[in-house]
């Protein structure tokens, strides 16, 4: 399908001998919000980190199979290039503590030594912060350290940092699990707005969040992709008994 941005083909991940992600096949379309849910230890985060090749940074971690990004296998590409092309937001907000808010947004350029004119930098910073719904709150303190912001603001700063690199795809690894309810709702609100320009894959173990924000949901259990369907369909009439059990809270 032409609209496909990410496609996994028989993808497997391992930590040493531990088979964590088993034979996953999935196809994700452009401008979709995909939620990946499942109980702890089901391999959802590992799968996510396989997409931008962060998984292999852990000692002993290996993977097999293909992840196609725009039809090209990321495991045939340079890992650094892959990671620059795909944005990622982590569980805990992790702005660079040695950089200001402004510098944090353009960190992808600064740290890679990409030369950008002052005017372009200003544009990138404003546009990214606006997209991350943070511009109004920080526009007067751009040169303060990013670590002075609240947790929710820091997380949106990290989103702005990812957006600034103009990725097509942004991966979120439980982005709200360290945030309070108000910050969580502001980040969730953001997902709806980002959908217009980006494809989002959000790992969450919060089912309500998956139901609220996503177009389609993937359910992982014991390393397998059990079910992948429209979110509404999945939450009302799941096809697989295991999904049914998870959604109804028979195990977690």
């Amino acid at each position: 399908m032409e609209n496909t941005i990410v496609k996994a083909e028989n993808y497997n991940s391992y930590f040493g001998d531990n088979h964590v992600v088993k034979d996953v096949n999935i196809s994700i379309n452009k401008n979709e919000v995909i939620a990946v849910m499942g109980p702890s230890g089901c391999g959802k985060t590992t799968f996510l980190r396989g997409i931008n090749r962060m998984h292999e940074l852990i000692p002993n971690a290996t993977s097999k199979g293909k992840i196609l990004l725009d039809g090209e296998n990321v495991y045939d590409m340079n890992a650094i290039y892959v990671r620059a092309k795909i944005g990622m937001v982590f569980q805990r907000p992790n702005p660079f503590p040695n950089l200001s808010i402004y510098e944090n947004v353009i960190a992808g350029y600064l740290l890679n030594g990409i030369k950008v004119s002052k005017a372009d930098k200003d544009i990138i910073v404003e546009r990214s912060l606006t997209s991350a719904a943070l511009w109004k709150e920080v526009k007067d303190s751009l040169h303060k350290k990013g670590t002075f912001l609240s947790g929710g603001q820091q997380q949106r700063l990290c989103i702005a940092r990812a957006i600034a690199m103009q990725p097509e795809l942004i991966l979120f690894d439980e982005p709200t699990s360290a945030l309070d309810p108000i910050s969580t709702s502001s980040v969730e609100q953001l997902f709806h707005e980002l959908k217009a320009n980006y494809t989002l894959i959000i790992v969450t173990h919060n089912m309500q969040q998956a139901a609220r924000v996503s177009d389609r949901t993937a359910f992982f259990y014991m390393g397998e992709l059990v079910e992948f369907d429209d979110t509404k369909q999945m939450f009302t009439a799941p096809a697989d008994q295991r999904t049914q059990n998870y959604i109804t809270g028979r195990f977690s």
Partner: protein
Amino acid sequence: MEAKIGFRNTKSVIFKGIVVFFAFVITLPLIIVLIYIIKQGITQVNWHFLTNVPAPVGEKGGGILNALWGSFLMVMVAAVVAIPVGMMAGIYLSENPRTKLAYYSGLCVDILQGVPSIVVGIVVYFWIVKPLGTFSALSGSLALAIMMLPIVIRSTEQTLKLLPDSLKEAALSLGVPYHRVILKVIVPCGFAGILSGITLSIARVIGETAPLLFTAFGNPYLSSSLTKPMESLPHLIFTYATSPYDDWHNLAWGASFILLMFVLILNIVTKVITRKWKIQL
């Protein structure tokens, strides 16, 4: 029951008293040494003392410029050698803690830290001074650099190990290559810790006499040549304090005072750096 609790409380108070007493006692040696040296040394120090070389026996006046300059020069050269080497090694140890190489080089660092400074001096003497046939400031610097290394390595390693992995992941996920992640994110974030290790290591070696005895040797004249013998503060104190002349004893007291001030200031600077520049994670 009531009495029992009262007895316990008394025991607690006594225990606390003992702890406070010893915490105070350990400050005494420093205070006594400080007062004594300040008393003996401060009267010697004036502009003339800082800007002149020692006078020959029998002549009045004279200062310690040669030793001040020599110590400064040799410590600088030692730092230029030890800081990059130590930081690189420290980065390796913190980044790859589980490798065999890290285990053995970590072990070597610990052993090196325990090697008596005079042994370091002898080794440098046999390696550099003997083959070249002359005492030199450079060999002294090398001995000092070897003394500095373990402190720089360990402080770099410990500081960087404390930084969370999430920081590295943040940079890597932006497509930043590994060497830039280390140089632009990890090292700057741990800069305060590394810098305080560096100033501590300087404070540690600036007072070292033993490794300089048969490397830099000493020189009664002002010299900036790294290939010739050079005077240093601790060596000047050693030779002048063991001489039979009262003038020279006074010179040694003055030099002790200056050296002590250096070490004191460096230690205070270290404390300030760690407090002020510490990056809030």
